[in-house]
């Protein structure tokens, strides 16, 4: 703890500032690619879960339950060891992309499902009565309406994804946490625990905090608007009765 006031330790951190920035970039890279994979899987899972076709719903359910009920670290390690011992050469970075994408795909899937299910059935009926097919209905009518419901939890998923890149440390990744840890335990740079962890944590915080603030504010505004709608309807009903 006392290293936090040591000028020498801070100087070492400053000298190796590129290392920290590099770690942050790796974390963001994993998060962005992971997010893209998670979105693709998530929308597929969400659409399957609301398709009304039994076998598709079962597949979506099994996928979500499996990935949500087992630790990400276990999934990451399994992928890493299984590939390593079967002689497949894939870099740790790619394993990170895939495992983050698969894990968060389950969560995104649940968000998408909840979004689609929140749309009144009348919208589906109206679209069909106008001759829209399934794909058209989803693309033009349903999904655009889900955006505002989906957005806050989706941003929370992004925050979770950024934080979860730290799991890649366990397989020797180069994310921000692994970089920070290697820095404080490194032979030439070791010892500057206080400043290094402070900087590593601060970088995470600077990225995640604005995102979670934004999500929180959207969510509150959404609830506020719902309440206003409900009050307006109640007032109108009261007025009609009178």
């Amino acid at each position, binding site marked *: 703890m006392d290293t936090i006031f040591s000028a020498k330790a801070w100087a070492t951190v400053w000298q190796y500032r590129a290392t920290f920035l590099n770690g942050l970039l790796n974390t963001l890279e994993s998060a962005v690619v992971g997010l893209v994979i998670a979105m693709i899987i998530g929308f597929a899972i969400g659409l399957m879960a609301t398709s009304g076709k039994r076998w598709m719903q079962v597949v979506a359910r099994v996928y979500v339950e499996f990935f949500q*009920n087992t630790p990400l670290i276990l999934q990451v390690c399994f992928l890493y060891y299984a590939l390593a011992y079967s002689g497949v050469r894939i870099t740790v970075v790619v394993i990170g992309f895939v495992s983050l994408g698969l894990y968060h795909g389950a969560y995104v899937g649940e968000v998408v499902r909840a979004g689609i299910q929140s749309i009144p059935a009348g919208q589906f009926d109206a679209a069909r009565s106008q001759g829209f097919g399934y794909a058209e209905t989803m693309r033009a009518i349903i999904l655009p309406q889900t955006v505002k419901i989906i957005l806050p939890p989706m941003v929370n998923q992004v925050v979770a994804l950024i934080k979860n890149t730290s799991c890649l440390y366990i397989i020797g990744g180069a994310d921000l946490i692994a970089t*920070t840890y290697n820095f404080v335990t490194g032979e030439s740079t070791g010892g500057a625990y206080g400043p290094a962890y402070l900087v590593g944590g601060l970088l995470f915080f600077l990225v995640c905090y604005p995102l979670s603030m934004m999500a929180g504010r959207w969510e509150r505004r959404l609830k506020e608007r719902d309440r206003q709608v409900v009050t307006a309807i109640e007032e109108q009903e009261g007025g009609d009765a009178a």
Partner: protein
Amino acid sequence: MSDFMNELRGSIGILRNPDVMGYLLKGLLFTLGISIIAILFSLLIGAVLALVRNYCTRGPARALRKIASIYIELFRNTPLMLWMFVCFVMCPAPSFSKDFAKLLGFSSTVAVKTLFKATVALTLFTSAIMAEIIRGGLNSVAKGQFEAAYSQGFGTFRTMTLIVLPQAFRNIIPTLLSQMITTIKDSSYMSSLVTVELMGCTKLIISKANTYNGTWVDRFNRGTINVTDVFVLFGFAFIVYFAINFTLSCVVRRMRTRKRA
């Protein structure tokens, strides 16, 4: 093909080994024990944080509110892995006796200290999430409840502990249970510091799989770790985590649908 069958038989043999199975089940007990301890303590800390953040809105108490807010936002926006490492270096730990270490199945007291620090990290991290869950519960208690309690002559402390908190907790029981799932999963982060819980134990057994899967001949031919070992051992861990968490999530779902009906 028969090679594969032999390897698979060897891998399953690892799980049949009573020593290995006992070791893994002990890991499971640690996973559950650590998670329950972390949940209980973070409930306590989280409740304090939530009450402070929600109700210390006047006078000098606002400074406390600021601190609670900073704590919550700080831990919610940084990864658990960071706190594992920070606590490993900076968290003070009491000195444990050798007997206590032996009771937990450790050969040294150093590992007990690390376990303590890792549990502190998990608890501190979970407390911030818990605080936000409890705050949601507090906000769901109707304003009239406070007024009714005050009008009956209850002070702030008794209003909170006897009237508001019990109702708040009843409203958030499903969310608390799903946080239990998250905490059981999060306890696997400990495997980066100390090998006690299921994840760490599984990894350790895999790294020694060549001594258990029947390929070990002598000290010159130390056998190999096969990919089937990875599948069988991690598969076992997957099944155990899944069985516990899926059961919990079914309970949560049933509670939620019953509440809605």
